[in-house]
């Protein structure tokens, strides 16, 4: 592939041996990385007994779904936590795909006064650690607006993120301006240009953005934790935390809970791998 490695053109067997050894090292390292996940899934099929009597086997000795049942029996809202995570995730994705792409298009292609300043302000916002905004946002939502335990409160702060606006702007800047000029001459207004030209051309980047946004929303713990004092509004991550602190000695059920919280993301990852992997580099290269 790359010229960094010698191709050993005169002795191809040497290349095979070398690549075999490298692959072996990589597989061993990957095994170490993947081990906690393997352990989590395997142990989740154990019996829901207190840890003193449990055995931490590396291989499945029993195969029962009792621990999953134990987790769902823990709270009457266990299943609803999953639903809440899904609802919050979907609304967040819709908000970001629609409004971040609109803002991204405006910042990339529309000439309006104050554009540079506003975009610069957005960039600065990405540098602010979340701890700074957390306390005032909490006071705003809970003390002033009394919006805690609502979906609106869970979604609102990430409904359009500066990062996603930035991503869209980066991508849309690379689209040829000529198409837009042509469309204008044909009599399209900006909304039509956005809807009929820009959106179809940005499908891939928006898909990547949607997936990463959904993953971040699903895995987000801090904000839902602050916003949900009521069981029935909690997301799966908050629920798992409650379960952990309430059942400190139940090994297998805790693993079952962790598996439940992670499994939807694993399924999504395996079905949309290409987009996930693309998403990692999309924000980093030329960032």
């Amino acid at each position, binding site marked *: *592939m*790359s*010229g*960094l*490695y010698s191709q050993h053109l005169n002795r191809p067997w040497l290349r095979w041996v*070398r*690549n075999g050894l*490298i692959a072996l090292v990589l597989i061993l390292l990957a095994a170490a*990385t*993947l081990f*906690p*996940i393997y352990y*989590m899934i395997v142990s989740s099929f154990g019996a829901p007994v207190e*840890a003193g009597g449990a*055995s*931490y086997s590396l291989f499945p000795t029993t195969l029962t779904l009792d621990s999953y049942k134990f987790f769902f029996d823990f709270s009457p809202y266990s299943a609803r936590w999953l639903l809440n995570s899904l609802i919050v995730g979907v609304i967040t994705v819709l908000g970001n795909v629609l409004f971040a792409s609109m*803002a991204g*298009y*405006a910042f990339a292609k*529309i*000439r*309006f*006064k104050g554009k540079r300043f*506003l975009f610069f*302000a957005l960039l600065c*916002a990405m*540098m602010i*650690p979340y*701890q*700074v*905004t*957390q*306390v*005032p*946002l909490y006071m*705003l939502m809970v003390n002033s607006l009394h919006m805690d335990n609502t979906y609106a409160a869970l979604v*609102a*702060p990430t*409904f359009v993120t500066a990062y996603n*606006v930035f991503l869209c702007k980066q991508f849309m800047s690379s689209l040829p301006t000529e198409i837009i000029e042509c469309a204008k001459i044909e009599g399209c207004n900006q909304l039509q240009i956005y809807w009929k030209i820009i959106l179809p051309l940005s499908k891939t980047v928006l898909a990547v953005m949607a997936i990463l946004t959904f993953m971040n929303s*699903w*895995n987000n*713990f801090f904000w839902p934790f602050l916003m949900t004092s009521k069981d029935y509004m909690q997301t799966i*991550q908050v629920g*798992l935390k409650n379960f*952990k602190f309430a059942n400190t000695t139940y090994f297998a059920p*805790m*693993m079952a809970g*962790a598996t439940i*919280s*992670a499994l939807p*993301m694993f399924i*999504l990852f395996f079905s949309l*791998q290409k987009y*996930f992997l693309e998403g*990692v*580099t999309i924000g*980093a*290269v030329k*960032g």
Partner: protein
Amino acid sequence: MKKTASLNYSTGKKWRLTGEDMWGYAFIAVAMIVFCVFTVYPVISAFFTSFEKYKPLGSTFVGLENYKTTFSSSLFYKSIWNTLVYTVFTVPLSLCISFIVAILILPFKKKVQSLFKSMYYLPAVASGVALSVVWLWIYDPLPTGLLNSLLANFGISNVNWLGSSDTAMFSLILMALLAGHGTQIIIYLAALLGVPSSLFEAADLDGATFLQKVWFIVLPLVKPTTLFLLVTGVIGSFQVFMNAYMMTGGGPDNATTMVGLMIFNNAFKYSDYGLACAQALILAVVIAAISLLQFKLMGEDVEY
């Protein structure tokens, strides 16, 4: 298009908004409202709150009291120290591991590369809560705990990994180092694939060894990537919260209390919002200063 616009400006009609302007504002409206309410307002509010003592029935202005309390509290310095230790041991090492793995993945065909990328990225898909729960049990202090029973095979006696102040921080660092570097590996790999092969061909003609090629060609060329990963890694590490909160609660004896957890405790455990805001602002300044320092030290010949 361009001409008419510049004409407008030169004739002094600066503040007349054109149709194009209105479209621009309409398109960014929602994003800007969210931005103002959920970023600009909280930042300003945090600034004012940091000069107040919070009381349920109206806060009182206390001047610099919160900042004074912060700088005279030993826990503040301890948490900064813990954060620094955690950062110094996790971020550079994790960069090294990622770089080496990316180099190792490089010689394979595209399909095999993707396979390895997926394997290394998978842990990043699981939530921090789930991973913390799993590691909590790996570090189970009983002799039957996974890590303890594994080490018993090598004659190492039982360790109370998270419960003893000697090993608690080490345990969190080990977890961070083993929990996966998928994102960084993928970013490094993308940078490596961008190195032009003509450079390697020239080096081959000069008889350069593999390590020489890595040292003199690859490392300088991926320096912007390294800088990017270093800065984002340090920023992330300074805000770390989940592992300490879920696994040790900051203990034992605050051995794993890091800045993120300290601010969280002050705000949501002790309801001392003013103090928490003051500390969060200090954290923001520290992070900004460290990022700038990194750019200055490393970024002189990096173009962006």
